């Protein structure tokens, strides 16, 4: 079969440059007076039609018990499950035989914010947080140690619930 080029016919019978131009100008004039969608970010962090999702997974936060110590029992599940291998955990034991994390560091540059650490944690200690303002002046500030993780105060992520997939 011979190669053919399909040429599409333009709607020439209804084309009018002046009319189309005037219609376009009227449209843009209407837009000139419509309410604006811009969210003025640093002053305004939620807009009339947008809030950050409670399932947002941002930088981590460690919950603390009533004495102010980290709830982590150094079971080692989170470094095990972490796909990015960004958690460094050195377990230790105190005089009463309670395990705790002697070193608990999360490299937030390596983290892929999958939230598995929060899902797997039996003590509900480590969480990913609803937080995105993480700017720092140097790279080493992005390795969060346990002191930093426990003093974070932002909301924790509610993660995705299989029983309520749409978050209702």
């Amino acid at each position: 079969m011979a190669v053919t080029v399909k040429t599409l016919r333009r709607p020439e019978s209804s084309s009018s440059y002046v009319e189309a131009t005037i219609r376009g100008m009227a449209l843009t004039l209407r837009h000139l007076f419509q309410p604006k969608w811009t969210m003025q970010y640093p002053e305004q962090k939620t807009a009339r039609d947008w809030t950050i999702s409670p399932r947002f997974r941002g930088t981590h936060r460690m919950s603390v018990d009533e004495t102010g110590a980290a709830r982590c029992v150094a079971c080692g599940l989170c470094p095990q499950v972490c796909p990015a291998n960004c958690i460094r955990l050195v377990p230790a034991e105190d005089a009463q035989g309670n395990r705790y994390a002697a070193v608990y560091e999360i490299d937030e540059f390596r983290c892929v914010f999958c939230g598995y650490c929060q899902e797997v944690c039996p003590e509900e200690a480590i969480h990913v947080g609803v937080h995105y303002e993480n700017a720092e002046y140097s790279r080493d500030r992005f390795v969060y140690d346990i002191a930093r993780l426990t003093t974070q105060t932002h909301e924790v992520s509610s993660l995705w619930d299989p029983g309520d997939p749409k978050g209702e």
Partner: protein
Amino acid sequence: MNPVTGWAFLILSSLKAASLLGLLFLIIAVWTLVERRGAGFIQNRLGPNRVGPQGLFQPVADGLKNFVKEETLPPFSDRLLFLLAPMMAFVPAFLTFSVIPFAAPLPTPWGLLGMQVADLPVGFLFILAISSLGVYGFVLAGWSSNSKYSLLGGLRGSAQLISYEIAMGLAAVSVLVFSGNITLGEIITRQQQSTWFVLPLFIAFFVFLIAAYAETNRLPFDLPEAESELVAGYHTEYSAMKFAMFYLSEYSNMLTASGLIVCLFFGGWDIPFTSWDNSAPWTVWKSLTTFCAFWGKTLSFYFLYVWVRWTLPRFRFDQLMDLGWKVLLPTALAFVMVVGVAVWALDASGIGAGARGALILAVVNVALGFLLFRVLDRNRVLGGAGNRRRAESHRAAAGREA
């Protein structure tokens, strides 16, 4: 009152020139912001609003940035012309405004001071001559940069400017024929006595408006720049203040074109529906109100440039040439004939080219406008050289199917 003469004339003219230049710079600076915020508003966003109240100091920040940025001088460029080109674009852009009257004459202790920098008897010809010089700046910038994009932009610019200058000039010729004068001051006086020329010469206004957009390289005719195709066209290789000079000259050309449209078709500094403002005795108050009237009208057209820019997409280059040579030029030529015949007929019948004559011609224009926009504008696709061939292949294909 007699016109100012002697030393007072020299000093006052210099003052006028300096203050007009300052005013132009101020308006252009504000308009770079209006352009960006207008773009934002049309796209349902806010635009730059951080520097100062409502972003009002944004142009200052931009200007400062342009002063401290690195001046690049490409080693492969033609050094002399590369440095000369921005100036050659810049100077004519600001020079053309000097013959446009922007207010009623101002009475001073030394005599009557005309509110235009230079009241040239050849007014309009001066504008045509000087604005054509601007094309050298674009072409030389494109050529001396020694870069493909710049050269293409410069070539496009030269072809476009020369093509549309003809349509623009011819559209203006009908104004000159109808008013019987080429001094801009006289053209305005004629409009004050009869009616604004946009009514009797609407077709000429329409052609002039489109040609003015092409002359100033603005969308939908910004092919010399064409960001999406040519990086930045003729000023690709320019940076810092040299780039800013091209930028300023573009905005200045737009302002001059707006002022010219107002002078030729919208009565210049005339305040509509009144006549107290356009006859002696001249007072400071009259000068002030007519000044505001002129700038109000001019800035409306200046805003139209912004509005059109964020509405219409860019033409293809062959479509641009098609529009210029096959549509606007014949239209303008035919309209010059119509106006010539009309002026002759009005004179012969004793009506003259006054208010009544203008109204008669306005009726003629309505008919012509209907013909042009409702009949000839239909069933037409701007397609450049390949269009006829394509139409023939369509017809052949339709024949085969049937």
